[in-house]
């Protein structure tokens, strides 16, 4: 009986070892044959083969999805996979060397830079589109005409008091404000934290949700609610929400494609990024894909509800890319 147990145990262990041994081998041999095949065809108008791994922000995901969709019509043999682990999760995978491109809805943090440095991964940052963070209130809210950045701070930073609309400006109703904010893991929150909260804690009573549709529903259903999220969610729900123009010292500006693109809508318009591993750019399929992404991100991002960068920015990005080749 004892012998049987030993036998079974050793069988299990051998099995596990075999599995581990097989895994990476399969993977590397696949990659090798891929890149060998590519060396023969350096020109970009030729049919490329290989894999491109993309992960990161769920905000950038729709743009990437559109880019890959179009890209595969030209290059059906390049296998692009796009994940959405979130900006932070994306950088983690990027530092672990699992991805070629990391999507981000905020600039890279110092800790993340350090992790990449430690892993010996050099990267280049490209802006790919703009998103205008939209501050919205209920449709029946007839008092808010605009808010300044200081007003936003007064509204959103926790100070221990119960906040009423009348605290913000005289003549506004004495009703308690209800808050709806994206969850603290999201790049959207990080960006809002940076430009409005300034690192101070957000109001404790705020309803936090990772799902922006929940925020839309929340603000739609409550007359005293205020919330913020990506421009696409406001654009899809224009008839149910009222957007608040933001005054940053130069008059109140409402987020629209034009004001976001021209940079007039500050400080809440934010760039969305892709971070590309420099080493991966030596693979023609990755280079070609990034080039395609930068050439088409403008039109495609507008199609999925974001705002295009000015053309010069894309041109500049493309020449940076050219230099990295």
């Amino acid at each position, binding site marked *: 009986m004892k012998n049987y147990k030993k036998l079974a145990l050793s069988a299990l262990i051998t099995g596990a070892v075999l599995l581990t041994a097989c895994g990476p081998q399969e993977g590397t041999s696949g990659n090798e044959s891929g890149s060998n095949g590519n060396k023969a065809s350096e020109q970009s108008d030729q049919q490329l083969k290989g894999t491109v791994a993309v992960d990161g922000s769920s905000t950038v995901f729709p743009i990437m999805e559109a880019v890959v*969709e179009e890209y595969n019509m030209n290059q059906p043999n390049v296998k692009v996979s796009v994940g959405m682990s979130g900006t932070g999760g994306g950088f983690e995978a990027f530092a672990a060397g699992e991805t070629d491109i990391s999507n981000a809805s905020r600039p890279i943090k110092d800790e993340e830079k350090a992790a990449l440095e430690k892993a010996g991964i050099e990267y280049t940052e490209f802006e790919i589109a703009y998103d205008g963070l939209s501050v919205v209130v209920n449709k029946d809210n007839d008092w808010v005409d605009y808010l300044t950045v200081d007003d936003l701070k007064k509204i959103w930073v926790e100070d221990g008091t119960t906040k009423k609309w009348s605290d913000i400006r005289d003549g506004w109703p004495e009703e308690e404000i209800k808050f709806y904010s994206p969850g603290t893991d999201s790049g959207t929150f990080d960006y809002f934290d940076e430009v409005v909260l300034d690192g101070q804690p957000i109001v404790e009573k705020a309803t936090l949700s990772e799902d922006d549709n929940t925020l839309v529903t929340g603000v739609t259903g409550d007359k005293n609610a205020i919330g913020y999220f990506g421009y696409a969610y406001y654009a899809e729900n224009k008839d149910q929400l009222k957007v608040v123009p933001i005054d940053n010292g130069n008059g109140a500006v409402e987020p629209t494609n034009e004001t976001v693109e021209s940079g007039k809508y500050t400080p809440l318009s934010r760039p969305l990024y892709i971070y590309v591993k420099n080493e991966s750019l030596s693979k023609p399929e990755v280079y070609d894909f990034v080039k395609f992404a930068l050439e088409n991100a403008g039109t495609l991002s507008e199609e999925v509800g974001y705002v295009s960068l000015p053309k010069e920015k894309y041109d500049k990005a493309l020449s940076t890319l050219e230099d990295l080749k």
Partner: protein
Amino acid sequence: MKLIDQEQVIRRMKPRLFRNTFFKYLFLLATGLCLIVLAVLFGRIFIQGLPYLDWQFMNSLPSRKPEEAGIYTALNGTIWLMVVVVPVTMILGVGAAIYLEEYAKKNRFTTFIQVNISNLAGVPSVVYGLLGLTLFVRTFAFGKSVLAAGLTMSLLVLPVIIVSAQEAIRAVPSSFREASYAMGATKWTTILRVVLPASLPGILTGSILALSRAIGETAPLVVLGIPLFLAFLPNSVFDEFTALPMQIYNWTSRPQDEFHALAAAGIIVLLALLIVMNSVAIMIRNKFSKRY
């Protein structure tokens, strides 16, 4: 002397009868409420999703244009995931259950393992995702493959399968085993020919419930970093893939209403898949339970 006080019986009859009917309707209401919630859910999903559910939806890649989007890669990925999860969980789960019930001595150590298995069944699925990420994706370097995700999902549902299989094995009357031993059968023959066939219906019921959970889970896959958009299918268990719940999750989080309808259509497909799996299990169960 009257044994039964007729008057008192008559007096008490009314409240008794009332209580009798009251509880009947209370339980009816409980069942009804569950059914209503289910019906509302189904109604909503079907009304929203059915218009989008067609052959093209089953056969297309995800797309930024809702009318062209489909679940081809996601559905295939989920089936691939099952290819890993079903054998791994059945072999390990039933094996562990047999060992614990038939071989293991009933001592403190066994009880300790037992308690832990039951506890593991209640651990949030995200935790399994984190475990899978460090163990399978990074340490074993399986990458974000079908194998890594399949093994993670297997860990997630194993406790449920072990516990239910153990209960099924325990329910086999010991007279069956004794009869087998009396005929001169060895322990292994007894397990293979007597215990397993008798407990198979119970094992299958538990396993199918557990596998249904594995099909529907999103959280561990998100943590593993399973990609969402792929324009290709896996060729082996070492390839990357995406799964139905991931696609549904992504579509529900989009701002456009059309994508929410697509998510509903995806849910219908997922439900259909579950029903097919459940019916297969019920068929097998009926076939085997007739023998005893």
